[in-house]
């Protein structure tokens, strides 16, 4: 018992030491930056001091309505994610059912996945105007290929033995889909949806920044155009924080769906 507890303590200690070292290095770098900027080695008109950046968080929340902007970005991301999930999975299922269509179009979809679709945003601006719809559609279109491809992969990699069991129970094609194929493919489909959601969020914030409209991306653009340096840095930190939280939450859901992965 004592040996086991000691081993456990040693393992926890071994895991904690590197994490603490990493965090300590980060704090040391921030402190060094503060000293170098105050000493005039780094120009404070290009890089504000970390203390100034930390101090402007409160101002951003009070004066720049970060909460509302965050909700707007969330609403756009949610809209794009819903479209992605519905159309991406539907296309994937369709391609799985129609083998000939799949053979004819799968390479095209894979090629689309490697094309910089986000560069189409000026075209979307012309079609949908400078509105949230442009941002949602841009997020949706640029993140669609991975969802389709992963849905297709998940359905195609269903173990034949499961399908044979379904057939031996004389399941109808619809039952076979809903009882066997879809549940078996769900973890892989979620990987695609998660990838798609991350791409969508990246593109949504990017397009908000580029067209100066919407939530958090617009905030970064506005503050930089006002030359509010501590505010710009703080807004960037906030966007990074949001994407990290989003990434961690979707990662947790994926692990819950794929416990063995």
């Amino acid at each position, binding site marked *: 018992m004592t040996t086991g507890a000691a081993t456990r303590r040693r393992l926890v200690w071994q895991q904690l030491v590197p994490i603490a070292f990493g965090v300590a290095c980060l704090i040391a770098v921030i402190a060094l930056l503060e000293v170098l900027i105050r000493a005039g080695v780094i120009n404070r008109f290009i890089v504000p001091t970390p203390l100034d950046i930390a101090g402007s968080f409160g101002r951003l929340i009070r004066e720049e309505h970060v909460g509302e902007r965050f909700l707007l970005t969330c609403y756009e991301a949610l809209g794009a994610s819903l479209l992605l999930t519905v159309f991406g999975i539907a296309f994937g299922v369709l391609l799985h059912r129609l083998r000939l269509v799949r053979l004819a179009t799968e390479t095209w979809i894979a090629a689309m996945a490697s094309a910089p679709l986000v560069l189409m945003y000026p075209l979307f*601006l012309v079609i949908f105007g400078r509105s949230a719809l442009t941002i949602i559609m841009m997020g949706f279109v640029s993140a669609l290929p991975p969802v389709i491809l992963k849905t297709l992969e998940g359905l195609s990699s269903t173990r034949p033995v499961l399908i044979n069991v379904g057939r031996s129970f004389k399941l109808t094609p619809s039952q076979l889909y809903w009882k066997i194929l879809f549940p078996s493919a769900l973890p892989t489909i979620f990987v695609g949806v998660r990838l798609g959601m991350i791409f969508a969020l990246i593109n949504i914030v990017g397009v908000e920044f580029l067209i100066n409209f919407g939530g958090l991306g617009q905030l970064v653009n506005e503050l930089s155009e006002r030359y509010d*340096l501590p505010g710009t840095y703080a807004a960037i930190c906030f966007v990074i924080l949001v994407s990290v939280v989003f990434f961690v939450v979707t990662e947790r859901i994926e692990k819950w769906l794929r416990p063995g992965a």
Partner: protein
Amino acid sequence: MAETGRLKAPASAGGWSALPLKRRVLLLRVAIIVTLVVVWEAVAASGLLFRDVVPSLVSVGKAMVSILTVADHKVQLFGAEHVIPDFYRHLWVTIGEVMTGLAIGGFAGLTVGLLLGANPFLSAAFERFLYYLGPAPKIIFFPLMIMWFGVGPGSKVAMGTISCFFPVVLSAASGVRQIDKVLIRVGRSFRVNTWQMVTKIYLPAMRQPIINGVRLGLGVAVIGTLLAETKLSNQGIGFLIINSYTTFDMPRMYALLMLLFVVSIAANALVGRASRA
């Protein structure tokens, strides 16, 4: 079984299903392309959308030919003056920025990835920061890049660099961990130094993960650089696209987007082929 299939085929259908699969796939692809072209032209001619939002493919084709062939820019090549289409100058600028960004970001990513992959302590200390920063939208760093590197190509190269750094570093770190331990033990038993370990063991054994990282890095470097060009630039393909938008030259914008997609898909396919060679 094969014989039965062959006997059944003529009874089921004479035409479509009797055709070989490759032929049917080809015919379907042609049918899809023809349908898309017909639908596009019908929408362009119908006037349902604002004029020129969906221009006729003929005008897009003309714009593309004009972009690729109308010589309007003087350049000095091998001591002689030549007149070439301005598109190639912009393409050259974008390629230069992307490749420089890829080289700097790729080299930095590979070096840091090797360090993290080879040292479990450093990996446990720092890799999580990179892992979580990776999916953040890099374009928001552009205002900082402008302040640090100016409004010229430097800020676009920096965008390409930070965009491609993350996929390369994560791919390289994971590649080092996947190396067969026997190879590392063989290297140590020969008492090779660190440089020899890197060049003779690590890099050759990590070829596939490195190429995968570079492939991913190339894709995001292209996006980062081009988005930066659309935001603030006076040269490059991104600038041409946003310039077509501001002058509402829609056929030219469609033509530029198509050319851009062809170039980036071809570049990605080229790196993919290199990984299989």
